[in-house]
């Protein structure tokens, strides 16, 4: 039981919203669409749901072509960023509405509504109207309405974006639990890499209407296939530096060199782009092979237990995330150490040539 998109594209008035995309989502999987706004996540979801007809390509559900089928005829549920509920109906009626449309018996409806409400902790609120509830509760009501009809495909378009930070955390922790119970295909769109990591499952990274990579979330995170995926899937943003390989050495400029070991030895000589994540920069020498970079410190941001360092190294602007509280003065020249095992090597066109050794070992 799978959802298959075959070379699906969408062009609206000459603008390409979605480049030809092929994707297969298996039953019972949680799939995250990760990308900045306007990267094509909503367009892709709308094509999956049947709200929009793709300009080219086919949508297959259980092996059947459903491309032209209207969304009302498919078993799809969708939850939006704005808490969308029927304002004049109580929470009970809201959740019951799709079942009533399907013509189920009153006893069946009652059972399904009560069990879904229980799962989403809405039981005490069944008698109230949506506008009397808090934002988090309204979104739970919308989620309940989506889940109660036991659709095969549940689409969530940044459902937690309008909620408080802490509420987002709580609801986000519940989504995997709810998802496991239902067995449907879940598709969850978000702009935050951390959400993708917390939800697990599979992730598809999107950039400017293209899916750059699709696979199990930890894998896409640790083994990005190109620089775009790496950039989309990093928060703080990934740091880059140009480097050159000559013979047995990789030079990062200013007499910072690393031996070309392991997979690096097989690389042809030339210019490459090295990428590494912010949390792999350290303020002390933590390993024998660590490379030292002299940087000028811009602003430091303290988040209680960690510190963000905004650095410039030559023309590069970097962000470092270090443990502990360090209140260093801006303008200071400091050294940061990076273990070559944490470095990804990309060719000038952005394709990954050598993944970071630590990621391969995990």
């Amino acid at each position: 039981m799978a959802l298959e998109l075959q070379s699906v594209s969408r062009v609206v008035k000459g603008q390409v919203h979605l480049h030809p995309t092929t994707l297969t989502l298996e039953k019972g999987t949680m799939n995250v669409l990760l990308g900045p706004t306007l990267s094509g996540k909503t367009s892709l979801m709308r094509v999956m749901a049947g709200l929009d007809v793709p300009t080219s390509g086919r949508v297959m559900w259980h092996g059947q072509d459903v491309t032209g089928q209207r969304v009302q005829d498919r078993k799809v549920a969708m939850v939006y960023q704005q808490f969308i509920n029927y304002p004049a109906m109580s929470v009970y009626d809201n959740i019951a509405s799709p079942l009533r449309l399907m013509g189920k018996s009153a006893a069946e409806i009652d059972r399904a509504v009560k069990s879904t409400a229980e799962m989403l902790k809405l039981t005490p609120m069944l008698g109230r109207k949506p506008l009397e509830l808090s934002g988090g509760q309204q979104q739970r009501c919308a989620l309940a309405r989506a889940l109660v009809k036991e659709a095969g495909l549940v689409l969530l378009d940044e459902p937690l974006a309008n909620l408080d930070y802490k509420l987002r955390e709580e609801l986000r922790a519940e989504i995997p639990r709810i998802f496991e119970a239902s067995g449907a295909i879940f598709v969850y769109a978000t702009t935050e890499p951390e959400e993708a990591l917390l939800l697990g499952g599979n992730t598809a990274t999107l950039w400017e209407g293209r899916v750059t990579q699709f696979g199990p979330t930890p894998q896409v995170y640790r083994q990005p296939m190109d620089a775009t995926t790496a950039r989309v899937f990093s928060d703080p943003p990934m740091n880059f530096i140009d480097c050159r390989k000559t013979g047995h050495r990789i030079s990062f400029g200013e007499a910072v060199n690393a031996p070309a070991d392991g997979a690096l030895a097989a690389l042809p000589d030339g210019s490459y782009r090295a990428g590494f994540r912010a949390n792999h920069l350290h303020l002390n020498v933590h390993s024998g092979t660590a490379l030292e970079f002299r940087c000028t410190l811009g602003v430091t941001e303290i988040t209680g237990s960690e510190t963000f360092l905004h650095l410039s190294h030559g023309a590069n602007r970097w962000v470092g995330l270090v443990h502990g509280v360090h209140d260093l003065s801006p303008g200071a020249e400091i050294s940061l150490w990076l273990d070559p095992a944490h470095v990804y090597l990309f060719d000038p066109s952005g394709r990954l040539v050598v993944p970071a050794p630590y990621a391969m070992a995990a």
Partner: protein
Amino acid sequence: MEKTQNNKAWFLVLPVLVVVAFSAIIPLMTVVNYSVNDTFGNNEFFWAGLEWFEEMVTSDRLHEALGRQILFSAIILAIEVPLGIYIALNMPKKGVWASVCLVLMALPLLIPFNVVGTIWQIFGRVDIGLLGHYLAALGIDYNYTNDPVDAWITVVVMDVWHWTSLIALLCYAGLQSIPNAYYQAARVDQASRWAVFRYIELPKMQGVLLIAVLLRFMDSFMIYTEPFVVTGGGPGNSTTFLSIDLVKMAVGQFDLGPAAAFSIMYFLVILLVSWVFYTVMTNLDKEEGR
């Protein structure tokens, strides 16, 4: 946002199309027929081609009526639009008084046109009308039956009384849609009342204002009942606007050919102006990114 095709929608529209066809399109075709023939309506048609059109275009009488009409519409718009905006800006937005004001504003719009005309006709009479009587008592020489200027003033004031509410209500609706944050930001930015009007309220009311102006222009350009009831087109022909003239021609003189030609041209002018407004409005919408 494109919706998936739903062909059933056409069936729902069919009854409307049938009604419009019978009540508008077919009669219109009849008028076109009359305009290119010479007839007295007794089913005898003599081809006249564009003769009637030529006669109408060169007719002085039509030019004068047109001139009066344009002057009337211009005065109406010049008074009603600013007045309507001013009223809308000062109507209360919340509370009991908001509902009371809305009802009061709506009342003039609910009165049938010929009743409006009759009200003002009696109101303005020097012998029994409240207005006419008190004006005469104050020593003002007011008589709309034999002074063209007085007739004009009466007709203009009547129209303003009747229709300003429409503009006020439309603008009021437009104003309601402005989020509070804009007013708050203006206070923070230390903007003057005029700046708030010019940069926040007016732009947001643009869409509604355009609709309001279009409606008022069209209505005033076609105005018939109210001035006819009050002045009958007089004194002389000082308040004979285009439709009054047209009716005189068609019904009074039975000049069906010229009247039909006149109607067609009249219709085309209104169509043209509406199209211009519509294009401007949709271009504005496009700029907003809608």
